[in-house]
């Protein structure tokens, strides 16, 4: 028997891509075609689903809301995690190892645990239904993750680099921003990517902490399914658009993702 080394990987990739293909396929069909017949590609190719999303504010606001809180969250997480990770990577202090591990344990609790206290707290201080509420809630999970990833990347930079900069005359902040941050730029990119990933796909907190004004796209999608019947083509188009930002971000950090999954420790 002749060996066909490409066969198994090809089948596997087809298997992985099938649902994505089906989603994209559906997004160019009308709902009637989706429900009426089984077709491998759109018979009545239509862009109506996409047009609707980009023209109807209840749809595109969902994207704007999601992107807003995701960006706020990314910036907050990185800004807070950078100095924290630097401290963990460069200094020894009482209980540093325990504190570092405790950070990670934050990620072990399910988001649902925090939904109720957050809802009550944010309602009380008037943050309910704002992008900031969701962004802050997500930092609970993202800052520990970002600290872990950045600490890994920072520990890969010898502390002699810090000292060389001081010897050259740089102040701490001069060194930190002009030399250190550019040196670990890849790590910052990866940390930002993981914050993006979590915040972009997280549904429970995002849905709980918003009602109308800051409703994220994922919430819009699920609610539409229940109120105005089955608009499957529209939902598929929304789903396709939800994948796109993630794909773009992945493209930029593709060379460092593996190191990121190992929390920067490769």
């Amino acid at each position, binding site marked *: 028997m002749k060996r066909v080394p490409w066969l198994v990987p090809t089948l596997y990739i087809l298997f992985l891509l099938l649902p994505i293909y089906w989603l994209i396929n559906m997004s160019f069909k009308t709902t009637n075609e989706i429900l009426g017949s089984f077709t491998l590609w759109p018979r009545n190719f239509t862009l109506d689903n996409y047009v609707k999303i980009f023209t109807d504010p209840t749809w595109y606001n969902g994207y704007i809301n999601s992107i807003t809180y995701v960006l706020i969250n990314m910036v907050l997480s990185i800004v807070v995690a950078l100095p924290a990770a630097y401290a963990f990577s460069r200094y020894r202090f009482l209980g540093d190892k325990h504190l570092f591990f405790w950070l990670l344990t934050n990620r072990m609790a399910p988001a649902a645990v925090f939904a109720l206290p957050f809802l009550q707290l944010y309602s009380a201080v008037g943050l309910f239904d704002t992008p900031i509420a969701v962004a802050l809630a997500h930092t609970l999970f993202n800052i520990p993750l970002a600290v872990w990833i950045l600490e890994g990347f920072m520990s890969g930079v010898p502390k002699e680099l810090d000292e060389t*900069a001081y010897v050259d005359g740089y102040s701490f902040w001069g060194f930190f921003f002009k030399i250190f941050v550019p040196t670990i730029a890849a790590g910052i990119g990866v940390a930002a990517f993981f914050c993006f990933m979590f915040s972009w796909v997280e549904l429970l907190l995002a849905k709980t902490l918003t009602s109308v004004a800051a409703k994220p796209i994922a919430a819009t999608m699920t609610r539409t399914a229940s109120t105005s019947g089955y608009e499957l083509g529209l939902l598929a188009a929304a789903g396709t658009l939800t994948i796109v930002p993630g794909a773009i971000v992945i493209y930029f950090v593709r060379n460092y993702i593996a190191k990121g999954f190992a929390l920067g420790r490769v």
Partner: protein
Amino acid sequence: MSLDLKNVTKRVGADTHIHETSLRFEDGSFNILLGTTLSGKTSLMQLMAGLDRPSSGEVWFADRNVTGIPVQKRNVSMVYQQFINYPNFSVYENIASPLRVAGMAQAEIDKRVQQAADLLRLGPMLKRRPSELSGGQQQRTAIARALVKDSDMILLDEPLANLDYKLREELRDELPKLFAGRNCIVVYATTEPTEALLFGGNTVLLHEGRVTQFGPTSAIYRRPADLTSAQVFSDPPINTAKVMKKGDQITLENKVTWRAPKAARVPDGAYTIAIRPHHITPMQQGREASTIEGRVLVTELSGSESVVHFDMNGQTWVSQSHGIHPFEVGVTAKLFVDVDQGFFFDGENRLIGAAA
């Protein structure tokens, strides 16, 4: 301008990294810190540079107490064992970095960087990133950065240790020329006694955070103040044995007797004798050479040199000689000892007698 360490110590938690140390380095001097790994060379350099504060004691520079003054205000340069350069800067910007921070005019920066680059043969590399250079070139970049500003003191922490053999020899030849004519204190840390001997200058012998001896390199090589200093300043390790001296004979623990060295005036008594490996050879050197026998453990042949490790009364002794002497492992070798070159240390390991 001289550097003075006055009774400095460094403690971290319960560990003492540097025991009380006082040293004075003169302007324009080449000083070597010689010691094994973890002997405190880097800790001592950090105290000198101002990267670290001593737990007690003072650091003076040119009659000014600089103990609490941070490294940024000290005008020192440093080169590390790892090739430390700013990865996101070009070679040019790496070398220019201390001048940029000092706010020097662009024309002057250009001139100086070019000079330093020419000196270290980095001219064609200026536009590249450090990661695009070979290890030797990366270290040259680091050295160029250390030379480009007129520092009062240049600290080199095992700068050649990570280079391969050829590059190390090449750079080792160049280094003294680079520092010649500069009015700065050079401090060079190394683990290799050979390097200290090649550079000359002054040597500080360090052992477990203590300075055991400080003085002109050749002088302390010839007269180690104590047994530890002799051990630090010997590679392969120096051979030691407990001996009894009586009249013109010395007796080892295994009853072997040697004639007492002529030059060293050592009173009768119990001593530790230390003999450098190259004074134990397979060939007879003088007419009255003393001999020693031992079971061969390892023989290392390196082209023009033989290093034989042998068992001497339960201790491993080493002989180092020119030529190829392929002793087989396990055989009993008869070797000749040049006792006249031995050092005698008393019960407190202080030097009592040495070859004239």
